[in-house]
């Protein structure tokens, strides 16, 4: 067998992927040919070295970084991010949170000043609406809570003669 053909098969020979006949032919050739034997010893040395190395998990963005560098080397345009609007979400979020906290706090502090009886009643409704029967769409849960709260306060206002008629429009339906 010629050296060129043997060297092409050396890797498969090292990995024990050849059939018995192929193995025999290469073993015989390596006994006779110094150059191929030298090539084989380098290959087996490299294989041993690679086997000793620790397995490395590529990072999650490895693929992205790889293709970016490949595109750069070809002179193609690299994807650019949009820096102008990326600052916008956090201030908008902060503003919405401030609005939510201020309305909820305002309601709770006003409720707190009205006495334990009413506070307990509203707190029970909060528990019933948000914890016991959580709606998949929470703004709807909040809407239901507001409507029930409004009805409870309207009834109380009528009983205390603060208001002569139903304000919420729900008391008359019952």
């Amino acid at each position, binding site marked *: 067998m010629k050296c060129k053909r043997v060297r092409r098969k050396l890797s498969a020979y090292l990995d024990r992927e050849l059939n018995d006949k192929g193995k025999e032919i290469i073993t015989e050739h390596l006994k006779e040919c110094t150059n191929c034997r030298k090539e084989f010893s380098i290959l087996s040395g490299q294989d041993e070295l690679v086997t000793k190395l620790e397995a490395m*998990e590529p*990072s*999650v*963005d490895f693929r*992205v*970084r790889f293709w*970016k560098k490949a595109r750069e080397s070809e002179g193609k345009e690299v*994807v*650019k*991010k*949009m820096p102008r609007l*990326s600052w916008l*979400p*956090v201030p*908008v*979020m902060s503003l*919405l*949170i401030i*609005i*939510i906290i201020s*309305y*909820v706090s*305002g*309601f709770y502090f*006003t*409720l707190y000043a*009205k006495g334990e009886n*009413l506070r307990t009643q509203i707190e029970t409704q909060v528990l019933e609406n*948000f*914890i016991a029967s959580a709606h998949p769409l*929470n*703004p709807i*849960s*909040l*809407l239901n809570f*507001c409507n029930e*709260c*409004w009805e409870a*306060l*309207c009834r*109380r*206002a009528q009983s*205390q003669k*603060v*208001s002569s008629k139903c*304000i919420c429009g729900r008391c008359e339906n019952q």
Partner: protein
Amino acid sequence: MSSKLALVSLFLGIFSFIHLLGIEKAILAIIFGTWALKETIVTPKSNKVAWIGISLGLLYLAAIAVVLVFYFPKLILLLEKLK
């Protein structure tokens, strides 16, 4: 990157114990989306996905804020009239 995902996992685990009408999830969506936009390498797809997450988070917060702004002043007014 894998350490960032680990950090995301930690925050989500901590926030599993907090229930604030889903507001906590919206806040996390906005924060992580903004974080993703500030990465050094941003592909068009990850850019789009980040913006979708941010928009949904903001939309949710806006929906909660709208309900509160519409209803709570009336409730507070009525509460103040009560003895």
